[in-house]
């Protein structure tokens, strides 16, 4: 653990030198942003996104998210699975005003292993949905969000 942190520290400077910014690229033509992101319940969002709410629970999906969130505004989440032919991964936060947090479309060659940081307004269940071979699989975990203000 300590070694890892050391490496991170060493790599801090000089990473951005290669990045160049360009604006006004033509918008990439891909699936349209789904209205599922506006839905206020998990089921509505599932229907909007996949046309069904039928999910199979599968505990081989790894949903890495802290049981107690250090900071509800920034909760790191990783979803990964060894299933084959994964085309989509989505993440839901049940009690957020709009539960669908993010949806990843994974072309062939891209690993079913995505990370993101999300907001959790309160303690709740976070759900990951994996679409593989046209079927939907899910796993979930409860996350406790504490109210702080004193840390560090």
């Amino acid at each position, binding site marked *: 653990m300590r070694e890892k942190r050391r490496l991170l520290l060493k790599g801090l400077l000089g*990473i*951005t030198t*290669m*990045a*160049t*910014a*360009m*604006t*006004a*690229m033509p*918008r*990439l033509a*891909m*699936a349209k*942003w*789904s209205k599922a*992101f506006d839905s206020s319940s998990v089921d509505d969002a599932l229907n909007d996104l996949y046309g069904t709410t039928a999910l199979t629970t599968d505990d081989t999906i790894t949903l890495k998210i802290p049981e107690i969130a250090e900071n509800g*505004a*920034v*909760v*790191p989440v*990783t979803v990964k699975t060894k299933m084959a032919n994964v085309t989509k991964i989505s993440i839901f*936060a049940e009690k*957020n*005003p*709009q*539960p*669908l*947090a*993010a*949806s*990843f*479309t*994974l*072309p062939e*060659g*891209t*690993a079913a*292993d*995505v*990370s*993101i*940081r*999300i*907001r*959790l307004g309160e303690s709740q269940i976070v759900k990951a949905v994996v679409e593989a071979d046209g079927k939907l699989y899910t796993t979930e975990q409860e996350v406790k969000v504490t109210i702080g203000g004193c840390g560090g």
Partner: protein
Amino acid sequence: MKIKAKIRRDMAVVKALAKHPMETGLRKDKKTDKIIPAKFIKELVCKHGDKVVYHADFGRSVSKNPYVAFTFAGAKKGDSIAMTWTDSDEETLTVESVIK
């Protein structure tokens, strides 16, 4: 947007941090007591050459200054990738980075 991309075991591991307020449209400005209008990244796409290797759609629950990480095959050291975000105001930004 900052991008760190490197080859690990034949796969390109990409980590990116976009600078964006990710306003939900639900938050009030403490001083004016007015609702801050929604402005959030809806879409983040990564291309390797012409191929889209990653496409993420975001809702309002993604943290401010969104961070993402993903892994894809078929790239080598020295290749370029381009990441583009588009937000709810149709504002867009593309940043290129070389895989190390």
